């Protein structure tokens, strides 16, 4: 595998179920060793896209290339998949379960046991090894399922809503683990609704809405291309300036402070000068980028 071969390429991939088009002519490129965010509202076609990537269903048209090779049965072991809807065998012991899933991904029983031990330690679950799934909390089951997706050291890891069900402590642990995996050269596709997490983790993102791609690029590009500038402002006596439509497009009260969206062509320094000249008492004035959350909502409501 050459270093510059994309980890994953989708070329004009489409899939419909009867009359319903789930994915329409989707193309995307995932660079190796990055975290790629596959974002979109419910029913946008994310799950179908992922199922085509992991070879559960075949696309009607287009190609899926994993490290330059067409996706097929041979390549299934190079992918690790954590589905959004997840499950483990309820009555099976965790240790046996991990060995089973490891073997299904081509590990020997011994390898599977060793990897399982390592991961159980890392995720602080070692003492649960002999327990049955039934006896574990939701968050623990979630982490076990995560292990089944990563234990065979896949080149491409696809995680659908990996943070759901995790408490803040475990969510931090998960973020840490994802950074480690990325540092180890693995490619990760993160499908999520949680924009804050995506913003913290992703290098590149792709936004899908109504079975089409509506936005793609690096996080930087996406944010600067959003064409929207805003200022976080906390000030007294600022009303006069904020009602000037030549400078301010809108104000959103966020409690402790307000988010002031600048009008097109307006300069934030000009706004600050006008505020000070107008006798306002400014305690916070900070240029803010639009959050992924805002971009998501804007794009989805446009579509």
């Amino acid at each position, binding site marked *: 595998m050459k270093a510059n071969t994309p980890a994953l390429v989708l070329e004009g991939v489409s899939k419909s179920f009867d009359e319903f088009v789930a994915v329409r002519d989707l193309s995307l490129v995932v660079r190796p060793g990055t975290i790629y965010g596959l974002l979109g509202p419910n029913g946008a076609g994310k799950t179908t896209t992922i199922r085509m990537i992991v070879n559960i269903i075949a696309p009607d048209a287009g190609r899926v290339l994993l490290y330059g090779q067409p996706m097929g049965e041979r390549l299934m072991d190079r992918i690790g998949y954590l*589905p959004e809807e997840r499950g483990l065998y309820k*009555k099976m012991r965790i240790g046996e379960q991990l060995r089973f899933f490891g073997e299904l991904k081509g590990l020997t029983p011994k390898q599977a046991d060793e990897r399982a031990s390592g991961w159980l330690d890392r995720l602080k679950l070692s003492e649960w090894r002999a327990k049955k799934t039934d006896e574990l909390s939701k968050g623990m089951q979630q982490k076990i399922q995560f292990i089944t997706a990563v234990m065979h050291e896949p080149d491409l890891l696809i995680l659908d809503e990996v943070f759901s069900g995790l408490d803040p402590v475990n969510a931090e642990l998960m973020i840490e683990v994802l950074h480690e995996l990325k540092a180890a050269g693995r490619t990760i596709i993160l499908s999520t609704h949680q924009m804050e997490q995506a913003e913290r983790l992703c290098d590149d993102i792709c936004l899908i809405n109504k079975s089409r791609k509506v936005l793609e690029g690096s996080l930087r590009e996406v944010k600067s291309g959003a064409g929207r500038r805003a200022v976080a402002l906390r000030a007294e006596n600022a009303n006069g300036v904020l009602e000037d439509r030549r400078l301010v497009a809108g104000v959103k009260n966020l409690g402790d402070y307000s988010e002031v969206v600048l009008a097109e062509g307006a300069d934030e320094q000009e706004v600050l000068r006008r505020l000070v000249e107008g006798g306002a008492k400014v305690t916070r004035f900070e240029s803010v980028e639009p959050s992924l959350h805002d971009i998501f909502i804007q794009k989805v409501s446009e579509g």
Partner: protein
Amino acid sequence: MRKLLVIIRREYLQRVRTKAFLFATLLMPLFVVFTAVAPALLFSIKSGGATRIAVVDETGQLYESVRDSILTSRGEDEEGKAKAQPQMPAGGMPGAQGSEAQMRQLGKAIGQKYEIEQVQTHGRPTEEIKRELNGRVKKNELDGYVILPANVLSPGGRAEYRARNLGDMIATSQIRHSLRRAVIEQRMRDAQIDPRRVRDLSKEIEMDALPAKEGGEKDTGQSFGLAMGVGLFIYMGILLYGQMIMSSVVEEKTTRISEVLFSSVKSFQLMAGKLVGISLVGMTQFAIWALAFLLLSVYGVAALASRGMKFALPGIPPVFFLYAFVFFVLGFFMYATIFMIVGSVVTTEKEAGQLAMPIIFLSVASVYMIFPVIRAPNSPLAFWVSISPFFSPVTMLVRIVTETPPLWQIALSVGIAVATILACTWVAARVYRVGMLMYGKTASIPEVLRWLRRA
């Protein structure tokens, strides 16, 4: 291939190691033995010792012979005669003769005891005596009493038995029989006939039923029992393990494990692994039972015989075990693939249960077919039923046990079963693949047909 083995191993070990499997394996033979022996054991438990009976003899001739007859419970010789007579005794249910004879034998076998006393009439009217005896029964001095009216010896005479507990069928039956015998013998004596001579002359002859071949062993209904038992066994195995497949599929669907599995193995491998793994569980259980049966027939029968109990196990030719194995496997795969389809289109265990009803009816129908097939194993009905898919495993095996059909018929039956299994697997593989990824609602039949075309 390696992944297929991984799946088979999981399906097998996860089931064989459960306590449920252990219990079912151990308890099933115990249960069979228990249901066979328990009724007799329970009947034999009678508290309170002897049954106390008073006899009111208005003829003045019968008391001694009635008492002896009840106390000795002799007279098995007359049984055949009683059966042959069309007239029904008072209170007897038509058609209940056979079971009544059984009751009597049972009573004899468990040694029912009686205490008999005579009630002196002293010319009192019957009503008064009855009142008095009712009072004694109420005070628990008696369990019951018999009234023999003066005309009981004339044709059409009737006796009366009144007791606290008429539910004690053994006692009622023994008393009825004893009365009848005493009265008949008295009538004979009145007609100057020696009852002993009549008994000797009317002794039944035995008829041995044997298969029409060289050196056949005497058949005393074992082949019927064997055929019935084998049919039911196969039916139970198929249903039990077929439904095990269904709930396994439903579990993987509802917990969404299937999604992970499908990203690791082909759906066909998963399906095949499940079928093979669970069929192995069934075979393991059957092997244990067969072994237990063999041990029982070798040691158990010897042990029983040494205690003087006659207990004949039907002789089973070894090739029969091979046939039983083949038809169990065929039946299992036929039904299991259908159960698998059901499991993959539903969304909950409950729905699966409802949708599985027609399949269960089908298998129950095959059990009902056992009866006509046993009676006429070479009739056209038996032939057609035993080559029809879904009916053949049970019915063909019954035919083999009762009257082995020509080899070509067995081969045809196996061939049709194999073809059915292949067709079902083809359908199941497609429906399963699509069904397992469809969440939210149970698929309708047109939808399922669309999946078939698309896949």
